[in-house]
């Protein structure tokens, strides 16, 4: 028998195959697809209608809603690692010779792709309904920034989910950590110089993602105060560092075993 002895596994196909699996699984679960389509439309309608009264129009909430979509979709996409573990798929990945970082990256890119699909859908919706005055280059850069945010948040989701044995424990994390993280990102409240809320939000890496998107998205007839926002290069830097650290931590944690591996 001719043995295929391949001690060095090239990581590219491993990353792609695992990312592809996330997308295939996503599209095969009809309720997830419907949820992904409906959620942005619903948020859009609710935010626009609900906040019209207090001077914060849909234009203000647009970047924040994108951040919310990225946050929740990215994180829900990666908590599927809990399912992978429970359903047993993960065990065969763990004993394969592929490098561990490639497995983590595959999972994270797959989750990010799902989050980006949904965020792009919302972007198209915004473009159709609002007077988006940003240049094509600005929109392109905004999409690039959204991708980095998606990778950062999917990695964060991976980090949280790796050691969890059931999705139930996730709800606590959701309400005491992820939701406040979004609230404190400047997505809901306009940044004002010197307030404690703004000060606090400076310690939240997501703030810089949202602020970066505010720099890129301009709408006709809306004036969002830019003076209290961190400048654009800081936004990029913090977001990239955030993504890099989250990915490094996800990679590191994936080298540890949990009792959940032992089905």
């Amino acid at each position, binding site marked *: *028998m001719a*043995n*295929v*002895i*391949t001690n060095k596994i090239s990581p590219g196909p491993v990353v792609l195959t695992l990312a592809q*699996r996330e997308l295939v699984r996503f599209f095969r679960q009809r309720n997830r697809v419907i949820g992904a389509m409906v959620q942005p439309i619903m948020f859009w309608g609710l935010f626009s209608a609900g906040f019209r009264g207090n001077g914060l129009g849909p234009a203000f909430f647009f970047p924040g809603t994108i951040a919310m979509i990225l946050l929740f979709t990215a994180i829900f996409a990666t908590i599927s690692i809990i399912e992978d573990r429970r359903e047993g*798929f993960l*065990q065969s990945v763990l004993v394969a*010779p592929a490098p561990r970082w490639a497995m983590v990256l595959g999972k994270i890119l797959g989750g990010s792709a799902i989050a980006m699909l949904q965020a792009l859908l919302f972007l198209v919706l915004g473009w159709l309904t609002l007077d988006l005055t940003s240049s094509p280059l600005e929109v392109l850069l905004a999409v690039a920034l959204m991708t980095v945010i998606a990778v950062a948040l999917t990695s964060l989701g991976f980090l949280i989910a790796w050691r969890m044995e059931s999705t139930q424990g996730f709800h606590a994390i959701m309400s005491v950590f992820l939701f406040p993280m979004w609230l404190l990102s400047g997505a809901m409240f306009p940044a004002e110089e010197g307030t404690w809320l703004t000060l606090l939000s400076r310690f939240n890496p997501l703030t810089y993602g949202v602020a970066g998107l505010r720099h890129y998205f301009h709408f006709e007839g809306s004036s969002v105060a830019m003076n209290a926002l961190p400048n654009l290069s800081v936004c990029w830097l913090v977001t990239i560092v955030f993504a890099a650290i989250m990915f490094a931590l996800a990679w590191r944690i994936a080298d540890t075993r949990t009792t959940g591996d032992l089905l």
Partner: protein
Amino acid sequence: MSADSAIVVSEVTHHYGERVAVDELSLSIDEGEIFVFLGPNGSGKTTLFRVLSTLIPLQAGDVKVLGHDLRGAVNSIRSQLGVVFQAPSLDKKLTVAENLTHQGRLYGLSSGEIKNRSQAMLSALGLSDRNSDLTESLSGGMRRRVELAKGMLHQPRLLLLDEPSTGLDPGARADMWKYLHQVREEGVTIVLTTHLLEEAERADRIAIMHQGKLAALDTPAALQASVGGDSITIRTDCPDQLASNIRDQFACEANVVDGTVRLEQPDGHQWISRLVEAFPVEIQTVTLGKPTLEDVFIARTGHQYLSSEE
């Protein structure tokens, strides 16, 4: 150890917290043999399987798999190792072909190799027409076969299987064994765990595990021969009393094993009449059997097979 050993285990110990699952175990498995770890649940065989499959790290002791050190060269081992877990590892939302494709990529196979190998594996396992079915639509027996195809896809030199016949009906189990023997003919070493005594008899060699230790290691025939003659099991209300009476009267070994009296003697049928005549009141039932692996287990551990499950 010689170069012909597929696996060499030296003084391996594994703890889960305080509990010792594998206790200073040493043994070696030859290349090309079918080797079974037999033991009740909780005997440590699954823990050993997890260590050998590289799923959990080696805590203490040394293991060489196909000449590579398990601690140092884990990826060299992984690429030559096929692993079939007891718990299903297929993605149910994917088709059979998609599952195999992902597996192939994780082992660095090219698209062409994946296609050829998948076809070969599926036809060898009688699943050719199921290629594009979602695995969740397959029966339990078919899924086990896909698991086997998945484990063998990259042509490993060593195939590890944890309780592979779980959930298989007798026909499917026979098919699986036919396939394993066929693969062995191609030079693949096969190591599996089982808690089923009748299954272990199909192996070349059996390691009987008990409480994390090796209770016996030999060919099925040698193990059965080691028990010595026929085994006689007697049910009675006072086993200790009866065993001691038998020892006194016949000057032979008689042991109490979990509430029954057991003797191993050649010419068991003659012993039965002698025993029943000597103790007509005490003996409730008496059974005579050729030694089975269960008798071997009892002889080596002093415990009934089933009652020693944890």
